[in-house]
């Protein structure tokens, strides 16, 4: 395995060939913002929050999909990137109805946390206020489309880790919506195993466990690393 040495935000770091900039950076405590990435499942480069500047390259690159190369000089936190990230998060808040004050994930939401980190104190684009349903037909879980940011973590974890492929995306553009099976209510899904992985990986309050009040829901993602390591290396880690 060849080792690549590169500079990220002024620090000399090393990664193995094939490892992404994102992974090398996070391992060394450089927290590049992200919403669609979650360790253990495939990356799609959709949220565009982990874009970084690489010296010598004109275009910004999604760090979750860009492998490290020898001698790369990467900047993960420039004024330009901050401005873009801020506007992307504002766009998400305006796209659907994220009413944090009445959300079960208030205080532990990745979107909300990101907004705070980026110093967002108001949204400059117009709120769209779409009319979206809440699916409470599942015995243990709920799906609130108002909180969904279409990151597709649920779709990927269900397909890649659980193997059920209950979820997929309906329609396109801003009218996209996560669906189970043929658009039936979640509770009526034949393929869902009720494993709850989708709920745990959801970055916002779109997927939640029933019976939680505002701000009570906490999610646990450690299972992903556990399962994926077990599957790939036959090691059962803590």
């Amino acid at each position, binding site marked *: 395995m060849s080792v690549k040495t590169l500079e990220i935000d002024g620090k000399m770091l090393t990664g193995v060939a094939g490892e992404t900039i994102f992974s090398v950076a996070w391992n060394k405590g450089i927290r590049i913002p992200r919403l669609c990435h979650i360790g253990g499942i495939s990356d799609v480069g959709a949220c565009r929050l982990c874009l970084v500047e690489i010296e010598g390259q004109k275009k910004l690159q999604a760090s979750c999909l860009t492998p490290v190369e020898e001698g790369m000089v990467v900047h993960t936190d420039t004024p330009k990137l901050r401005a873009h990230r801020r506007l992307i998060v504002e766009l998400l*808040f305006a796209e659907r*109805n*994220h*009413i*944090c*004050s*009445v959300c079960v994930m*208030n*205080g532990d939401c990745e*979107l*909300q946390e990101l*907004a*705070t980190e980026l*110093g*967002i*104190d*108001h*949204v*400059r684009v*117009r*709120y769209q*206020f*779409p*009319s*979206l349903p809440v699916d409470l037909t599942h015995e243990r879980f709920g799906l609130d489309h*108002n909180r969904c940011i279409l990151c597709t973590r649920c779709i990927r974890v269900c397909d890649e880790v659980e193997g059920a492929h209950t979820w997929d995306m309906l329609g396109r553009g801003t009218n996209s919506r996560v669906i189970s099976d043929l658009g039936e209510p979640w509770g009526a899904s034949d393929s869902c195993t009720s494993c709850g992985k989708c709920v745990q990986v959801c970055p916002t309050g779109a997927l939640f466990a029933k019976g939680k009040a505002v701000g009570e829901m906490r999610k646990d993602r450690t299972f992903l690393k556990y399962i994926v390591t077990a599957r790939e290396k036959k090691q059962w880690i803590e």
Partner: protein
Amino acid sequence: MDRVTKKPRLATAWLGGCSGCHMSFLDLDERLIDLAARVEFCACPLTDLKDFPEADITLVEGAVANEEHLETIHEIRKRTKILISLGDCAVTGNVTAMRNAFGVEDVLNRAYKELATVVVGIPSGNDVVPKLLARVRPVHEVVKVDYYLTGCPPSADAIHACLVDLLEGREPAGEVKRFG
């Protein structure tokens, strides 16, 4: 600046919100006494004034939800040097704006017909109940806002820090503790 007391004039206003942000303001507790010594309180939701007074700083709670709010906020903006959106309803629309996904008529029917127990019917034909706007809007969509205090409600500490900064001629640190 108040002509008599020579102190900066502070006002608060209450649009479409639950008044929780004003409660949080009252949570300044003994700090209110210090504050009262440093500013001239010129308007709050309890003062009975014909017109909104001239003010140096106005804290506005609530979203712009009806025609009266619309008129008020324009008036406030005209007479205020520094306008601060106080709390999530003013900043994002928050709970007040949850009706936007449904439309005015549905909301009125639900409130005044389907769920009515004593008097059934949508109030109309007088000026007592202002007409709802088609869409609830955060304050900065309607007028220019100078500072934002997020939270539902914003903490008393955050309100205090912002006011003290302003009164001491500093740019408020504007540290956001939690958005939305």
